[in-house]
């Protein structure tokens, strides 16, 4: 039986879709069978980031409304046989799906896949509730900005009321030079407030933009720093003890993250 993981944040544009695509690709490259669900109904873009847009025939809403079988809507990735995408509907809105239907869908998918990754929409409304309904655990994505951390905190508070283990944190778009200058929140500031386990830190990296436009997840590009960070996160998800990336030329950061990692409540 596989595990259903929702990737969520509260705030939009912080990297949920990027993280879903890259974790999916990284886990698949490590031999795991993975299905990605785009739960951002009405604003789908996980298919674009994965470069699979031209293969879509059916989507999530077709499945829950019974217009097609689940297996018909799953799109096989062009790089890995063990990676699939269940795309969102572009034309419907979030109320087209209920939490109960999402729960059922996740239950079916985790029989066949090691990982079911759900890309959550922004916000705390219906779309968010759908995205978390069938999840066994959650990953929170936050950028080093006060508003992003605030929203992440709100989400963590809401998830605490669910029957799932404490979520883990991915800090995205960190810029070591800015942190050093004191112009950006550093990891310890964020962990101080959120007080959850840190799963990974992804640098702000042009290769993400390039790979997003090409539909090739950066996690598959050996030279990409952000890709390396996602590969490490995937291995940590599998229970490996992978040291944190030393970001740029800042040896201090590695040490600091390690220390905080141990202290995170």
């Amino acid at each position, binding site marked *: 039986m596989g595990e259903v993981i929702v990737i969520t944040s509260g705030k939009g544009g912080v990297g949920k879709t990027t993280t879903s695509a890259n974790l999916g690709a990284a886990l698949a490259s490590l031999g795991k069978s993975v299905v990605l669900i785009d739960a951002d109904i009405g604003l789908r873009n996980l298919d674009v980031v994965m470069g699979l847009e031209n293969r879509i025939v059916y989507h999530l809403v077709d499945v829950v*409304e*019974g217009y097609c079988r689940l297996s018909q809507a799953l799109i096989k990735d062009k790089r890995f046989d063990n990676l699939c995408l269940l795309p969102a509907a572009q034309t419907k809105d979030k*109320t087209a799906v*209920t*939490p*109960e*239907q999402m*729960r059922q869908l996740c239950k079916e998918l985790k029989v066949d896949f090691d990982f079911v990754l759900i890309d959550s929409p922004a916000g705390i409304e219906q779309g968010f*509730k759908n995205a*978390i*309904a*069938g999840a066994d655990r959650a990953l929170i994505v936050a950028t080093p900005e*006060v508003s992003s951390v*605030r*929203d992440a*905190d*709100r989400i*963590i*508070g*809401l998830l*605490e*009321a*669910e*029957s*799932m*283990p*404490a979520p883990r944190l991915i800090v995205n778009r960190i810029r070591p030079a800015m942190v050093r200058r004191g112009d950006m929140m550093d990891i310890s500031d964020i962990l*101080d*407030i959120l*007080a959850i386990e840190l799963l990974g830190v992804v640098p702000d990296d042009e290769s993400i933009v390039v790979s997003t436009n090409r539909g090739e997840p950066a996690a598959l590009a050996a030279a990409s720093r952000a890709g390396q960070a996602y590969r490490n996160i995937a291995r940590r998800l599998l229970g490996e003890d992978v040291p944190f990336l030393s970001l740029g030329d800042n040896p201090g950061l590695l040490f600091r993250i390690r220390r905080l990692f141990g202290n995170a409540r």
Partner: protein
Amino acid sequence: MTGQGTPDVPSGGPAPSGSPPTMRSPSVEALQWLSTRSGVRIRLPAKGTFPTVLEDLERALGEGSGVRGLAVTIDAAGRELGVPQLREIEVLLLERHGAALLQVVEGQSAAGKVGGLQNGARGARRVSRRTPVSSDPVLDGGVRNGRRALRRPWRDRTAPPPVEDDPVPRPASPAAGRAHSAAAGVSAGLPADAAPTLLLRRTLRSGQRVRFHGNVVVLGDVNPGAEIVAAGDIVVMGTLRGVAHAGATGSTDAIVAAFRLQPTQIRVGAVIGRAPDGQAPRPDTPEMARLRDGVLVIERYMPPAVD
């Protein structure tokens, strides 16, 4: 298309309008009592008028293993609750059961394990307040107390009197007589150690809000965007970054103390102090805020002398 206020019902397509839903599972009908990682979550029945829901809630609270001293999350199960209805729930929790309403979620949650409270039910505890504090008043802009200069030019302003339509709920029933008189004591300026105390063993996160008619002690942090309103004192055994309002029913001798006091805003009685604009100061020692001659001052917390 079902409206926002109606519960989600599993449906295989558009149902004939006006016909009663038939595929409802029993779990949607009944009130559910879930024990979560951080406390208690009560899911209201999705059907029924509000008075019957309130009755169900009252019955469940009476039968349950007790929520005294706990922060309760209410799952409205898709129902839209108005402010007066929320207040009724809040008063019921406080008045009869000594629990605080932490947050209301409108989601549909998986039916979790029904069982004992993970936090354990805790009775209201008394904290005595015999803490000697040094007592230099705050100087405008260059705040200092007996030992060292404080970093904070706290901006004071007098708040409007406690808002009438948003009062801290107070016990009114004879059943809660003792707590009632204690709460009255707080507003009358009697010692805070006569008031009931709510002990919260958790961190309050953004969007969570606790109101209590006595003192509130938090074993955890109060994050930015979270808020505590108490008729008595507020003590945070962690970092207070959110908003704390002590003496909310008018008591001017209430205090706000924290292991690390970095609040967005503190209110004591009718006085509001806010953090200075720009970089928040980071104290490295426990502190407390109180009124001295009507001015909000922040002082280093001094442990009681041993005699």
